[in-house]
């Protein structure tokens, strides 16, 4: 890259950044407040909505959305039905579940001794789950969008 090219691309780069609205950058700074400090993060390892695309075969539109989150000691399996979010904690164990929304909302549900739970109605948009098991472990799933 010679001097003229470098200068011209520098100008382009600086102007591109000047076009970014301040509120857009501010929204990014604010995201740090959501940093998770106390719970283990459970990663999304399976999502029926994307696995079909990646494998080159789309799932049937009518199929229920299924998601799997994996933490070190446990797995959370989710199934989204039209009116509820159904789940199973593996290995089965009781606990308290919280459904957290982007707007700061939280809804709670109990997880029974065989690890089942249901949250009604199903969430809309972005959410995450916080699970506190009976033996005191705390797990937080990745943000997920329905």
């Amino acid at each position, binding site marked *: 890259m010679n001097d003229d090219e470098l200068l011209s*691309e520098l100008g382009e780069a*600086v102007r*591109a950044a000047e076009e970014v609205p301040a509120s857009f*950058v501010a*929204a990014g*700074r*604010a995201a740090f407040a959501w940093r998770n400090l106390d719970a283990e993060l459970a990663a999304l390892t399976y999502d029926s909505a994307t696995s079909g695309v990646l494998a080159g075969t789309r799932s049937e539109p009518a199929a229920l959305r299924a998601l799997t989150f994996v933490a070190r000691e446990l797995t959370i399996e989710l199934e989204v039905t039209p009116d509820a979010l159904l789940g199973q904690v593996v290995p089965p164990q009781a606990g308290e579940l919280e459904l957290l929304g982007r707007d700061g909302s939280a809804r709670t549900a109990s997880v029974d001794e065989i690890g089942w739970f249901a949250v009604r109605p199903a969430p809309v948009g972005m959410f995450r789950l916080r699970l506190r098991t009976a033996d005191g472990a705390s797990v937080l799933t990745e*943000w997920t969008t329905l």
Partner: protein
Amino acid sequence: MIATVRDDPTVVDLVERARDGDQGAWDGIVERYAALVWAVCRRHGLSGPDAEEVASCVWLRLVERLDGIREPAALPGWLATTTRRECLYYLRTKNRLVPVEDDERIVQGDDPAADEWLLRQERHIALRAGFAELSDKCRWLLSMLFREPPASYSEISAELGMAVGAIGPSRQRCLDKLRTSRALAALLDPPAAGAAGAAGAGGAAGMDKR
């Protein structure tokens, strides 16, 4: 974290401090890459509150992945891919049409034009970072030269109190400093192999899934 030759030490430092809870370091990461996230949103026709909504989702995902960043050089690729996905999701839920072929090609990330575009964005990020580290004098001079239309040498001379004959050599010195800045050095003179690969069409390279 494995810092590679492609990694600007500034980014390595920002990521490490953000992991320790330093909001200022996180702000530095956002400021460095916001223009990239914005550019991806614009490519999908999103701006204003729509783009902010998408960006918030992207940054939330990065916040929780801070511990999983192995190579900061993979950050732009990961951000571009994640932003594309969030844009497509946003467009779908808003009942706007997204051509299926586009959708799949983008999610799979094997589009040479997209790779080219991303490399250019990475260069822009490095150029801005290198530019920010220059002396005030260099930044003033280069700003006058790259603005559209560029300032004439006589305007520059009057504005910066610099002899017209000194402008050419100063321009060259400032551009040399930019080239050798930490952010740009690795990008402009990349190691023989792997530079394009690290730009990561899939964007997953160097980011732990956890």
